[in-house]
């Protein structure tokens, strides 16, 4: 654990990619094989579910440290991380032990089914034998909150350095539904057999946002354009007679979409399709708003009513595998041709269609179509070079996302709360309001978009201009105006304003505007009527 805690510490504190890769590669070369496998699992988001609620952990730590609970609660917002707060308040260890990461993960798995009373004794015992820096990682594993800022690409690079195997190959091997309990270092990483996991998806090809004018991309005829749908990017895999649906977050989501199950009958074996899962409006033959799909996501089983009201449909972008052959090195144009041919054979009732390609002769023509994206419930356009292979991960040059400009509104800062993690002693979580007559109505929360210097400045201002406190939340003088940018707007009975925004963030601090000049609820409602 000591070694893994040190790795975590290095990854956590450096922002330099090379330093992260070097630390990871060193771990993946030197640590015992079971630990390496666990490290990869944890760093790629395959962390075990919570074993102990963090509130319990906090209670036990307060008791062990001989501190009143309120004092621990007051310390938490300063630290900004409960697992860390607990690690810091616990008394020094009574024994010095160092069990391996794999041993601790087995220990966790064995603890899970036991009654809570047993949890407490076991956790206290574990803390007693553990150095302070190990406790942080241990607490995060216990509460299911283990996260560290390394991308999948970075893990693959490090693994490639450590093993000498090419990164794209490793990226593919690491995909899918494995845990250290179901595989081994040899089988997962070193084995050459591609057929040993039929459900394994390909790494998704991702695009960078287009920041330069589209005309800089060259001849329009070299590019394919299609809607950038606002749904769930996914892969449909039909292998060995089974259908597997993967989301881009590498979750196996097949059971969530029983309405897509017939794809197992419609698609030939050895087929992998990249596409977007959308809730479909059958009458209008177009997607429903993302919010309708969202209502299905939180559920393990989908009720009949929802299946009828918001049926799922897969709009296919790309064909990655056909008759068991990996098509990714082929040019997009060729893959698309094969996709269209394959889908033409499907009956009309199949919940699958090709995502339509835009017809355009000039970039201006395409730009005009993009402007209408919102009315198609799309976020903008995707531009893909006709000759492009299907890359693993995010690569600059061949694919671009050309999103719509966000919607904007000027709002008054009303409440502020301290952030977490690296933003712990700063106020970064804000609630914004618009005018409804003489009243300010809160309508959105935003956390991002300001520079560090701006956050520091507003933090100093909040401290001096706090009107009231509600726990960690401070009400401030209604004085500062911020331009809030967002991607979508919809009606929401759950919010006081009756409105919910998609991806709100602070686009600009409007120092030039007084609070009285901020937008009104009427203006917000007008946006809802237009785009909701």
């Amino acid at each position, binding site marked *: 654990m000591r070694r893994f805690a040190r790795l975590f510490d290095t990854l*956590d504190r450096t922002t330099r990619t090379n330093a992260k890769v070097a630390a990871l590669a060193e771990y993946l070369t030197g640590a015992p094989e079971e630990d390496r496998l666990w490290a990869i699992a944890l760093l790629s988001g395959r962390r075990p579910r919570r074993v102990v609620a963090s509130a319990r952990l906090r209670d036990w730590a307060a008791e062990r440290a001989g501190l009143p609970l309120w004092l621990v609660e007051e310390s938490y917002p300063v630290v900004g991380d409960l697992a860390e707060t607990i690690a810091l308040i616990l008394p020094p260890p009574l024994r010095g032990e160092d069990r391996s990461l794999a041993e601790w993960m087995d220990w966790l798995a064995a603890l899970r089914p036991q009654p809570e009373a047993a949890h407490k004794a076991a956790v206290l015992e574990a803390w007693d034998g553990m150095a302070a820096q190990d406790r942080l990682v241990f607490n995060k594993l216990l509460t299911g909150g283990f996260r560290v800022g390394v991308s999948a690409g970075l893990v693959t690079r490090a693994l490639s350095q450590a093993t000498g195997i090419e990164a794209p190959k490793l990226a593919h091997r690491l995909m899918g539904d494995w845990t250290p309990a179901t595989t081994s270092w040899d089988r997962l990483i070193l084995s050459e057999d591609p057929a040993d996991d039929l459900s394994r998806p390909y790494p998704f090809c991702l695009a960078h946002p287009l920041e330069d004018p589209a005309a800089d991309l060259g001849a329009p005829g070299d590019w394919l354009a299609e809607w950038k749908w606002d749904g769930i990017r996914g892969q449909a895999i039909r292998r060995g007679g089974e259908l597997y649906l993967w989301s881009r977050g590498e979750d196996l989501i097949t059971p969530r979409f029983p309405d897509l199950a017939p794809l197992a009958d419609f698609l030939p074996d050895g087929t992998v399709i990249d596409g977007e899962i959308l809730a479909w409006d059958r009458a209008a033959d177009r997607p429903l708003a993302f919010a309708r799909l969202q209502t299905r996501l939180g559920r393990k089983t989908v009720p009949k009513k929802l299946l009828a009201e918001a049926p799922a449909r897969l709009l296919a972008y790309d064909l990655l595998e056909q008759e068991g052959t990996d098509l990714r090195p082929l040019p997009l144009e060729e893959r698309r041709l094969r996709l269209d041919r394959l889908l033409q054979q499907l009956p009309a009732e199949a919940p699958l269609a090709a995502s339509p390609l835009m017809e355009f002769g000039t970039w201006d023509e395409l730009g005009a179509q993009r402007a209408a994206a919102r009315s198609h419930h799309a976020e903008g356009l995707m531009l893909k070079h006709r000759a492009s292979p299907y890359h693993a991960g995010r690569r600059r040059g061949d694919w671009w996302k050309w999103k719509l400009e966000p919607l904007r509104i000027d709002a008054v800062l009303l409440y502020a709360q301290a952030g977490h993690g690296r933003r*712990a*002693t700063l106020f970064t979580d804000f609630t914004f309001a618009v005018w409804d007559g003489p009243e300010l109505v809160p309508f959105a929360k935003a956390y991002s978009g300001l520079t560090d210097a701006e956050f520091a400045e507003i933090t100093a201002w909040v401290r001096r201009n706090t009107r009231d406190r509600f726990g960690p939340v401070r009400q401030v003088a209604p004085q500062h105006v911020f331009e809030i940018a967002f991607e979508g707007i919809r009606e929401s009975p759950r919010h006081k304003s009756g409105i919910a925004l998609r991806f709100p963030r602070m686009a600009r601090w409007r120092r030039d505007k007084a609070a009285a000049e901020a937008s009104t609820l009427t203006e917000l409602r007008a946006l809802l009527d237009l785009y909701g």
Partner: protein
Amino acid sequence: MAPVLSFTPEGIYCPAGDFHIDPWRPVARAVITHGHADHARPGHGSYLATPQAAPVMRHRLGDIRIDTLAYGATRRIGAATLSLHPAGHLPGSAQVRVEVAGEVWVVSGDYKIEPDGLAEPFEPVPCHAFISECTFGLPVFRWRPQAEVMAAIDAWWAENRAAGRVSILGAYSLGKAQRLLAGIDAGAGPVLTHGAVEATNEVLRAQGYALPGTIRVTPETKPGDHPGALVLAPPAALGTPWARRFGPASAGFASGWMQLRGVRRRRGMDRGFVLSDHADWDGLNTAIRATGAERVFVTHGYTAVFRRWLESQGLDAGIVATEFGGEETEGEVA
């Protein structure tokens, strides 16, 4: 009877002796605990401090009227009896003891309990009322022994030397920088200093504080002039063109705030060393108990929380609003 000390917009005030302690607005007579800018401000009619603190104050504040009082010596001012006692914060730093008609109040200034080998070690002063700082008044702030932190800095420096990198260590130019100089294995390689640090070094050396030799960084200093050097610089110099002149380097920062992972990450340093010249949670509690005081006033830091804690421990506690650097100047004072 009027209280021995009262709290005014100018700062802490003694009516019986008509003087202020560490006032933040200009007053006629100021007793100063130590030379940091938030405690020793310009513009007072006259200053009183320890003889050890006076040279740095003259260096920083220029032509001031300053009188000195040795640690432990007493002076009658009006109806008050005043004495200064080591606070362990930095060389020359003091706690201020004020006695009026048998009632004793003590102002801690900034202090730490652990002897650092350079500053005159903290001495508990029995009193009826104690005005204590509480910059790090939460139980998440617990320091490791100094020797352990210095060994970690030595190891980091050695690692950088072996890798052909310069080590740039951010530390407050008065106090922390000299404590580091005295505490690390300074003979292991060349030690370079930023002008602000070196100016303080010179003042303290002239007073007889034993500091190892250092090399001042000048505009002529070029990368590669001092391979494997350790550079001591004020935090504000880190990440600037000044700090980039040394070529490949690893940046570290020594401060109590480095205890928090969030702050470490925000600072973007390669290494954070938890080393503070303020008392940690246990230090504050130990110091307060040792005074035997029944009344405790807390200033700068997590005052509301710390006051509630003291009250739960059976003490009569209050908060003094001050304009000393605290939460908002994180990293600069600690």
